[in-house]
């Protein structure tokens, strides 16, 4: 799905990430952990071509990111669902229209039944016509997840998705992500929440990656 080959990325001449070699295989479940500022968000942005590497090669859906046109990147993003900690919405549109936004921009129409099922799945059916500013942090995260999966993407990238949530809500979101993985989706969650990682590892075959000294390593049993 997404592969990194000798990838380095940095700002102002100094590398934040260096010599990253990694492959996110189809159907895999990964956690990415590391201290704040280690480069977790940067890594995720490289995964969906919001950033391009300074050196090395990122391959997204069999295309080299650096040589993708802007339209190619847009089409690739329709196959990659992204959930941010501070998920953003179009505040002038109700929740259901925000969730169907990926379909709208790709010229498709959401089937009412499918949308209803999706809203039920994330527990937002009663809030379908509410506006994003009216949602709580947990509701926003779930709405962002629904938006990320409505196109049936191959990859789900979540950047600190539980950062603003209490433990119960974090578990609920994690459960949704694990369900998606069981459906065959590739999932990568960037988080520094070790309890969340331990909880997930007890239920799903997740690999844990750690950013340390600008490099990504497979974490061992020290979690």
């Amino acid at each position, binding site marked *: 799905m997404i592969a990194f080959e000798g990838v380095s990325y940095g700002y102002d001449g100094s590398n934040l990430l260096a010599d990253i070699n990694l492959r996110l295989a189809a159907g895999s479940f990964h956690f990415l952990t590391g201290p704040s500022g280690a480069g977790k968000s940067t890594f995720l942005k490289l995964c969906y071509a919001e950033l391009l590497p300074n050196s090395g090669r990122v391959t997204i859906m069999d295309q080299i990111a650096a040589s993708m046109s802007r339209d190619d990147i847009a089409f*690739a993003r329709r196959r990659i669902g992204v959930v941010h900690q501070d998920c953003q*919405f*179009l505040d002038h549109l109700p929740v259901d229209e925000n969730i169907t936004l990926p379909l709208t*921009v790709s010229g498709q129409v959401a089937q009412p039944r499918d949308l209803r099922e999706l809203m039920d799945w994330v527990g937002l059916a009663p809030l379908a016509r509410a506006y994003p500013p009216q949602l709580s942090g947990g509701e926003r995260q779930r709405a962002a997840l629904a938006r990320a999966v409505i196109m049936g993407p191959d990859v789900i990238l979540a950047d600190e998705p539980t950062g603003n949530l209490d433990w119960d809500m974090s578990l609920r979101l994690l459960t949704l992500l694990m369900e998606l993985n069981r459906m065959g989706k590739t999932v990568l969650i960037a988080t520094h929440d070790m309890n969340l990682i331990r909880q997930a590892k007890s239920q799903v075959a997740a690999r844990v990656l750690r950013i340390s000294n600008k490099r990504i390593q497979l974490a061992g049993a020290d979690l």
Partner: protein
Amino acid sequence: MRPSQAIASLRASLTPDGSADSIVPPSGHTAWLTTFTAGAMAFLAVFALALALASGRLAERWSDALERTATVRLSAPQDQIDLQIQAVLNVLQTTPGIASARALTADEQRALLAPWFGPDLPVDTLPLPRLIEINEDTSGYDSEGLRQRLAAEAPGAVLDDHTRWRKPLAVAAQRLRLLGFLSIALITGATAAMITLAASAALAANAGVIKVLRLVGARDGYIAAAFVRRFTLRALAGALAGTLAGMIAVSILPAADEAGGFLTGLGFQGWGWMTPLILPPLAGVVAYFATRAAAIRKLKELT
């Protein structure tokens, strides 16, 4: 972009797309600013167009009125005046290219001078030259040859072919017309500049919206089209209102016939009333290309 592509793109841009249109937040001061700017510019453009068309008519009228006529001015002792008039008329009647010639009567000369000296001018007692009016036919005449023949037959006769008067008037009217069209061009440019600024401001203000749209896989063309359509339709609506207001204002100007002067003739005539209707589509086209260029540039900046 080829013309056919541009037209297809323009048509697509003007076709409302409810779902796509809704992605751009509906409000903002740029909304009424664009409509107002387009309306005000269209209003001014109507007057510039009226000026240009009126100047064109004036130039043609003056040219037509003076182009096919000439005057022979005859100064001679009183006892020879009739003889020389006859001699001049004989010369003129035998000159190829002259359709007719006749000496103005004393009353006609008095009428010509009345605006300056009043109606009671004793023309007969003043040593005024006699005037002979010449009407050319379509082939025209050899003015230099005529001058030489007049010098031989009637030494006091001077041929005035109106070139000296006609040229500056026609040039002045043509320059006024040019000025009118130049004003329209400037108004068009200013409209494009203002709409570009408004569109750029709207795009910058909606950077967050654009970020979300890109995150969910929107192509730049899709995002740009949503803004372009909105600004094009606003400019079109504003220009339509401004054009109608301008036409109403022009229609209530005094009619040309009442005083016969240039200023009172500043308006449209006949089919000329249809020409301002080109302004709203023109504003739409200007807004389309201005917003499109601004959107493409801004979207490249917002990586």
